[in-house]
């Protein structure tokens, strides 16, 4: 028990008890004050209690509350502290501290009366966040040690109660701060939700919309939120099935990212959207809510769509151009080769015609001359014999037959070549399918290609029995020419010393006429084998090939004749092209 003592050295026992009682009463009063009144008014009353108890003329409480506010209680009122700490200390002057109680003075409470000579100050309470100092001043006599100890004793005794009070205040402050923050967050999130330019929505586990922001009205072309809220989301989608697919995914994965969906606006127009959403789940993984953000990407899609469309149109136009070019090249090629061949054939045909005719006449005349010579010889006798012997006429007459036979053979061959040249192009056939002799076509083509082949390869033919097939002979011959010339050029590219070999085989395979053209050239690498029928694909050096030969060939055999054109090539070399043509002509859709 701490007793309050007077400033004198001798104390009366009764006075001591009275002082102790007063100390106890003051302490109890302060405890009651701080326990019952949690407001800051308690500080004001506490100042009064201490002022009365210690008979002070001036009293004040300086404190810092849980909100870190610096306050000052004096004369029953409370003020914020405007003076900085340094000025306070400066105004107080020198301080002497004993038993945790500071003595100073003379000093006056700023703004409250004149100076008092004797002041004491003690820390009434303190915690991490709060602190309170009481300041007491008087004019009559300095403060006794007993009074100082009483002040210390009061501070010591009320400390736990004030501590609880402060803790509670701190909790309230923290709670208040949290509430303020929550409220601000709520406002912020609400503003984010409402002011977003993208549609934000929530829906329940049945996908019924529970809330939307203002942007949803703009996006969906509705005027009131209740037109969306309370209705199934699928009602907004162009294809309800799209929403089903979305829901299946979000239920499985918990979220869906960048899902494109087409919404139908109130006026029936459609809008392309990009949605990202996730689920809120409760215990056991039960879906409580869907939360999604939907962005209007119509403009982007429109631009992309137009770009794709333009590209596709361009590609189509390009394809048509390519086909036209192929056709033109094909026609030109046919025209040039065919016309040349036909022209030559025509030019040769006439002189060969009268040569052959004259040859037949000469043969007839020679036969007549030989008969006449025999008759003359029988009639004239030795003179003729002498002439015959001198001019070796018996040998001349004996050679007549073989000379005329050889010449006849020569004429036949020329006529056949001329015929083949005319047959090769078959310009007169046009685009009609007519009966075509495959083996004859091969023979004609070999004559046209002879100059390309004869110095680089031998040609070995094994032509089987084939019926005449329905085809455009001139075009098939062009394919054969392409393949044969390619074979010769491939062999030539090897720059070998000995001649290569080109084998041609034909045979009937069911209803198909099968033509095989095989060479022993370098072969076709696997890496480009699938591309050899592509238009403009060529491995030949510039100027030697257009890259259209095989593409045109493919078109002729596959597209026009409903046939098949394939290639086989071995890594060690050699290439075989197989042409298969339906004997009866193309099926109704081909050509």
């Amino acid at each position, binding site marked *: 028990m701490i007793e309050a003592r007077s400033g004198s050295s001798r104390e009366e026992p009764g006075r001591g008890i009275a002082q102790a009682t007063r100390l106890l009463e003051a302490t109890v009063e302060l405890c009651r004050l701080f326990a019952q009144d949690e407001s800051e008014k308690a500080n004001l009353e506490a100042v009064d209690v201490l002022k009365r108890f210690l008979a002070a003329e001036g009293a004040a409480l300086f404190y810092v509350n849980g909100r870190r506010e610096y306050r000052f209680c004096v004369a029953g009122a409370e003020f914020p502290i405007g003076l900085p700490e340094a000025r306070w200390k400066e105004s107080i002057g020198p301080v002497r501290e004993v038993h945790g109680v500071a003595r100073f003075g003379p000093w006056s409470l700023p703004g409250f009366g004149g100076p008092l000579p004797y002041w004491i100050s003690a820390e009434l309470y303190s915690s991490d966040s709060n602190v309170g100092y009481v300041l007491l001043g008087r004019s009559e006599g300095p403060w006794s040690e007993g009074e100082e100890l009483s002040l210390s004793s009061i501070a010591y005794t009320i400390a736990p109660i004030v501590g609880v009070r402060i803790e509670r205040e701190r909790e309230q402050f923290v709670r208040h701060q949290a509430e303020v923050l929550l409220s601000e967050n709520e406002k912020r999130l609400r503003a984010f939700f409402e002011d977003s330019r993208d549609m934000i929505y929530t829906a329940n586990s049945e996908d019924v919309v529970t809330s939307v922001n203002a942007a949803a009205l703009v996006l969906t072309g509705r005027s009131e939120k209740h037109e969306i809220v309370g209705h199934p989301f699928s009602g907004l989608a*162009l*294809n309800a*099935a*799209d929403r089903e*697919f979305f829901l299946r995914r979000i239920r499985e994965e918990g979220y869906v990212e*960048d*899902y*494109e969906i*087409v919404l139908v606006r109130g006026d029936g127009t*459609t809008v*392309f959207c990009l949605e990202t959403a996730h689920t809120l789940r409760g215990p056991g993984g039960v879906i409580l809510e869907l939360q999604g953000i939907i962005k209007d*990407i119509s403009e982007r*899609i429109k631009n*992309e*769509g137009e770009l*794709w*469309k333009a*590209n*596709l*149109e361009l*590609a*189509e136009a*390009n*394809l048509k151009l390519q086909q036209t070019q192929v056709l033109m090249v094909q026609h030109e090629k046919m025209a040039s080769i065919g016309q040349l061949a036909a022209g030559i054939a025509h030019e040769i045909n006439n002189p060969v015609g009268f040569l052959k005719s004259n040859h037949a006449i000469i043969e007839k005349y020679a036969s007549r001359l030989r008969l006449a010579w025999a008759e003359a010889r029988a009639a004239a006798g030795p003179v003729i014999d002498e002439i015959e012997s001198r001019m070796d006429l018996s040998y001349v007459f004996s050679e007549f037959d073989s000379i005329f036979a050889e010449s006849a053979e020569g004429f036949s061959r020329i006529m056949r070549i001329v015929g083949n040249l005319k047959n090769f192009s078959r310009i007169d056939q046009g685009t009609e399918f007519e009966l075509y002799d495959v083996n004859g076509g091969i023979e004609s083509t070999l004559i046209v290609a002879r100059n390309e082949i004869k110095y680089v390869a031998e040609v070995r033919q094994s032509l089987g029995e084939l019926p005449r097939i329905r085809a455009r002979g001139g075009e098939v011959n062009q394919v054969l020419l392409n393949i044969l010339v390619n074979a010769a050029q491939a062999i030539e590219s090897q720059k070998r010393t000995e001649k290569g070999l080109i084998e041609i085989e034909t045979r009937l395979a069911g209803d198909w006429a099968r033509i095989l053209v095989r060479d022993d050239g370098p072969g076709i690498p696997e890496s480009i084998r*699938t*591309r*050899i*029928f*592509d*238009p403009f*694909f060529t491995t030949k050096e510039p100027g030697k090939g257009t890259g259209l030969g095989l*593409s045109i060939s*493919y*078109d002729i055999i*596959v*597209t026009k004749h409903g046939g*098949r054109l394939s290639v086989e090539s071995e890594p060690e070399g050699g290439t075989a092209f197989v042409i298969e043509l339906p004997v009866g002509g193309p099926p109704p859709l081909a050509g």
Partner: protein
Amino acid sequence: MLLEQALARYNESHPQAPAETKYSSRGDILLELSGDLGMKASSDVAPLLEAALLQCPGRGRLVLDLSRVGYISSTGVGLLSTTMIAAEKRSVAFVLLDIPPRVKSIMDTLGLLSFFNVEESRD
């Protein structure tokens, strides 16, 4: 990259929705997709289609079976468009087989359906 390699790589990253390929006697390629053709899947399918196109013989057909595709994004439609263009360059017929109504509807809405060769069934 060969089609088989591209296919193996694709199926490794899409085990739930693997792709399959079949070849006809003419060398045509049938590529069967499943799952969705969203942004991510489309970028994975692109090398597969590229490889199939390269492997498809010139003048052949690349048939893309979409019957098991549930969803297509604009990126997916874009992929089909670029494949169509690449196929035309190679004179390969690019055919879309059995397009589900939802996918068809998106392509139609984008005004691109008419550019494609569409077949209704494998036969």
